[in-house]
């Protein structure tokens, strides 16, 4: 059975993929369906959902279109989640490969740094970083990656430690290959699968962290975010709970989708690897 067929047979994986597909469609379509500024006033304030079909999910305290905000928020969530996870995986893979391959003092220093980053709770780290540097999309991405690269670094290092003893690495040394080329061209690609297996968890965590930062008002002020929407809705939680519930549900579904689809991919590739 092909990996794709096996993947399609897992209902959880399919559900996760469906959620992600909708999410990506929302993110991509946002500027087409809602071309204007999503933060502009679109109607009367606090219009409940399903009342006016030009504003299907109603409006918030300032009369902004909740559906438009939801679509544009999907863009931010996905962009930040994917960028932060990519940065964390790249940094982690590079640090882990250098530590595992070089060994000795380099390994000690790099792993001590990794320990240091790991002891600080990643959310506090992100909070401190954004507070110090100031909120913008790039800073939020770096702030989240700062607390997320240590896991990939450890996994990459462990994998590199076992790969570097294999004959093909000795073979690369015998033909006179430069150590950096051995580390990054021969070893790293072979160490990558277990590192990439962490990506779904990291993306999901990054999306949550972004939402939490935005909730605390530390997101990019020029962008709509789900975390920011929840924070907005909190003030009118009793009278208009939908303002918090709608972005909250979107967030939960997104994290769930990322996680389920990611697990599906891991499971299918793990089976394939054990078969080969």
């Amino acid at each position, binding site marked *: 059975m092909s990996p794709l067929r096996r993947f399609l047979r897992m209902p959880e994986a399919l559900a996760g993929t469906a959620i992600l597909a909708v999410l990506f469609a929302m993110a991509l379509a946002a500027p087409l369906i809602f071309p204007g500024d999503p933060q502009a006033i679109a109607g009367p304030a606090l219009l409940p959902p399903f009342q006016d079909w030009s504003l299907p999910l109603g409006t918030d305290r300032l009369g902004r279109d909740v559906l438009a905000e939801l679509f544009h928020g999907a863009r931010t969530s996905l962009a930040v989640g994917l960028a932060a996870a990519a940065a964390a995986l790249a940094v982690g893979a590079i640090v882990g490969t250098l530590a595992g391959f070089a060994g000795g003092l380099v390994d000690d220093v790099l792993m001590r740094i990794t320990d240091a980053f790991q002891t600080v709770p990643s959310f506090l780290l992100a909070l401190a970083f954004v507070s110090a540097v100031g909120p913008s999309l790039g800073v939020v991405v770096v702030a989240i990656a700062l607390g997320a690269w240590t896991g990939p670094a450890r996994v990459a290092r462990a994998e590199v430690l076992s790969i570097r003893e*294999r*004959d*093909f690495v*000795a*073979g*690369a*040394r*015998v*033909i*006179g*290959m*430069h150590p950096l080329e051995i580390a990054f061209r*021969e070893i790293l*690609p*072979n160490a990558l699968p277990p590192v990439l297996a962490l990506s779904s968890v990291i993306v999901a965590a990054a999306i949550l962290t972004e939402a939490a930062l935005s909730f605390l008002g530390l997101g990019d002020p020029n962008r709509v975010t789900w975390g920011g929407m929840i924070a907005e809705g909190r003030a009118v939680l009793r009278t208009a709970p939908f303002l918090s519930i709608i972005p909250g549900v979107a967030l939960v579904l997104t994290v769930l989708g990322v996680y389920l689809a990611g697990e599906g991919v891991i499971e299918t590739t793990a089976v394939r690897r054990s078969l080969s």
Partner: protein
Amino acid sequence: MSSPLLSVSGLTKRYRRGGKTIAAVDNVSFHIEPGETLALAGPSGSGKSTIARLVLRLVQPDAGDIQFKGEDFLALGGATLRARRARLQMVFQDPLAAFNPRATVARVLDDPLRIHGIASRSERPRRIAALLERVGLSPDLAPRAIHEISGGQRQRVAIARAIATKPSLIVLDEAVSALDVSVRGQILRLLLDLQREERIAYLFISHDLGVVRAIAHRLVILDAGTIAESGDARTVIDAPQSAIGKALVVAAPKLDRTGP
């Protein structure tokens, strides 16, 4: 008299295992002349692979001296060592483990040509095809992945990679042990042809005295990291003096005493 190609003296390597130190290689000395085959034989754990790794500078010895082409090989490091490696190559026992699992045949042969600046980028495909033909393979194999060719073909690719840089010495650690008997004969013949035509010396590690007798000029028999006896390969195999030498000859399956 010219100096030998490789001369090893007092080579010692100790490993610490569970508190006590064992000498995997203990005060071993030998030399190899240009174009000569020296075999290393001995029971499992006698230190054959460790010697190979020491000679190739894959591990550092605890004591001893290695002269290669009249140069103190142990004193080399960094870029100088990497450059000198062109002259000293290796073929591993398991041809599948010896290559990056993601590599293709072409990439495996491209690496040494690129690293040692032997051929320009545009010239390399032609050189790769020539190398494949040199070891009796079709150049059509070049785009194949390493795991998509047979074990015998893979060992030929390993030999092609080893000769890509025109080495003076190739270390072969059990290079034919994993192969079928028929394939083994072909590979041995290829090695003999290459040696005759290019005057390559071999450090040939094997526990199979039949193979040793067919290919080696001289033989060193190791026991627990030390040299038990050494001499002309056929003389030693036909009349071993040491206890371990006698045991190895007895254990050898239907030793072909007529030679190739």
